[in-house]
């Protein structure tokens, strides 16, 4: 393991103001993630696990404390700088796939590369290779409504890989698919882990714990590790 953690959370607090009440969702979290870990973040709904994932993946910044990504304090970055970091370093897989319905599978996969300014030929080739690797080589020109849930999630995984990120975060990646498909999705994520990527999965599904090297539990904004 490297000397410097890939992700480091230092006394991270996140408070939401709802009306006149301050709701503290993350209550001073310290966490270090090494490159190449496979982490499952477990917690009931309302535990703060999604907020924690958002902060770790640079979608959100903490109210207090610091988040370091590869040694850089990302809690000091502005929104556009965070978007740049996300685009380069982090791949997202969502529970509801979050594909653009009017774009083809191939176009969906290329989209993050568009924002990184990659050339069209480059993005198309890589997107086609990625779709091929998740077994959708024949379905590239189909739009999401023409695909099954499992196929959509494989497109979403291919999309998360287009910019070759070091970290893949997945929020309930098997939440909307049946058990068999869920196993396939987890298989793909395991392969990605074996390629050396850091995988962080948020779930309340205990079966996913079997895939993890490290399980982190969160309850009421506080971590407990097993």
């Amino acid at each position: 393991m490297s000397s410097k953690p890939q992700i480091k959370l230092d006394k991270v607090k996140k408070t939401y103001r709802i009306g006149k009440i301050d709701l503290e969702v993350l209550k001073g979290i310290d966490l270090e993630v090494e490159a190449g870990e496979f982490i499952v973040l477990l917690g009931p709904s309302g535990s703060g696990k999604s907020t924690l994932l958002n902060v770790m993946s640079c979608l959100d910044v903490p109210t207090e404390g610091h988040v370091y990504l590869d040694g850089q304090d990302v809690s000091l970055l502005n929104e556009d700088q965070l978007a740049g970091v996300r685009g380069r370093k982090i791949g997202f897989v969502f529970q509801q796939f979050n594909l653009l319905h009017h774009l083809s599978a191939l176009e969906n996969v290329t989209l993050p590369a568009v924002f990184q300014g990659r050339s069209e030929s480059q993005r198309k080739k890589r997107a086609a290779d990625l779709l091929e690797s998740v077994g959708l080589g024949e379905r590239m020109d189909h739009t999401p409504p023409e695909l099954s849930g499992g196929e959509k999630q494989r497109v979403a995984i291919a999309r998360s890989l287009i910019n070759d990120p070091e970290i893949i975060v997945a929020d309930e990646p098997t939440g909307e698919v049946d058990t068999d498909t869920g196993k396939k999705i987890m298989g793909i994520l395991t392969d990605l882990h074996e390629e050396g990527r850091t995988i962080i999965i948020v779930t309340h599904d205990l079966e996913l714990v079997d895939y993890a090297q490290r399980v982190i539990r969160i309850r009421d904004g506080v971590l407990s590790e097993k």
Partner: protein
Amino acid sequence: MIKEYFKIAVRNIRKRALRSWLTILGIVIGAFLVVSLISLSEGLNKAVMGELQAVGTNIVMVVPGEGMDITAMFGGLELKNQEMEAIRRARGVDVALEMPWQMKNVRWRQTSESVLLWALDLQTGTDVARTDMGWDVREGSFARAGRREVIVGNLVPQNIFPGIEPGDEITVSGRKFTVSGVLRSLGNREDDSSIIFDLPDYRAVTGTVEGTPVAIVRIQDGYDIDLAISNIERSLEEVMVRRRGDDSPSFTVLSSEAMIEMVENILGVIQAGIVAFAGIAILVGAIGIMNTMFTSVRERTKEIGVLKAVGAKRKHISALFLVESGMIGLLGGLMGIITGLGAARLGQFVLDQNPNILVSIEAQAPFYLIFYTLLFSFLLGCLSGLLPARRAARLDPVEALMYE
């Protein structure tokens, strides 16, 4: 990169087809009004100006009616013999011509058509017509006074009496006349579709003895035009005051420069009115675009969240919406131009069918009109998308992702 935005914009416009078309329609109406009305008024401008500019600077026009009111020409007011004599008496006047016109049935061989007859006093006016008004025959010869000869306008042998040629006879009110020649084009369709009669012949066939809605006056060589105009005015005032017993003589004397300026002013006002009117229509269209784009931003909140999550910066999100609203504007402008040009053609056709309109209009769509209409509708589209795009760009990615 812009290509991707384009692709996404086109898909969005097509996906929400009805709403998109209704929004586009708002711009279409504005652009349609601008293009159709401006091209018709440009046509009017060109027709009137072409006629006026062909006239020499030593020619002035006298019309009955108050002030600088060109509509007096069409209003049925006439200068009588007494006024014509007063004009001729004025110092500096070389020739003063009555040039009345009237629609009449004319027969040639077996066909009978309603044609505009136009009078020219050949005795005194041939030289004015040929040298100062640029009239010339392209076939045959100019009509001679007292010979019952007429000249037909350039378009008569094509459109009215196909095949008519010098030497042919025509019949008007039971009198026969010989066609002596065919005029070269005078620059507008109405004039080119008329038949020119010697003034005494015109009086005989129309049954009139005097009166003309306009007098064409040539000023003596070397005589100051402005001085001659004031001489004519003074001379006419004396006659009119004496006749009517009041002190408000009603006539207007215009030099050809003054005529051009007057027409330019009138047309300028008309065009400004059109632009203001159509501008309001376009503005309403722009508000429509803004409304549609705000709705679109709200509906696509989640999509915006996804795009931001996968690395889209504010400028990317803004561009996405601006391209879409700009395209709506551009499409609206394009369709407005196409339908506007069509309507202008139709308007031209309808005006051509109306014999009371003396100036025939050929709709003009200058390049600048097309170019600026397109540019303006595109910019307006972008402008209307500015606030919605800003709102989209500023959405918080976490909140946008959670939006259902």
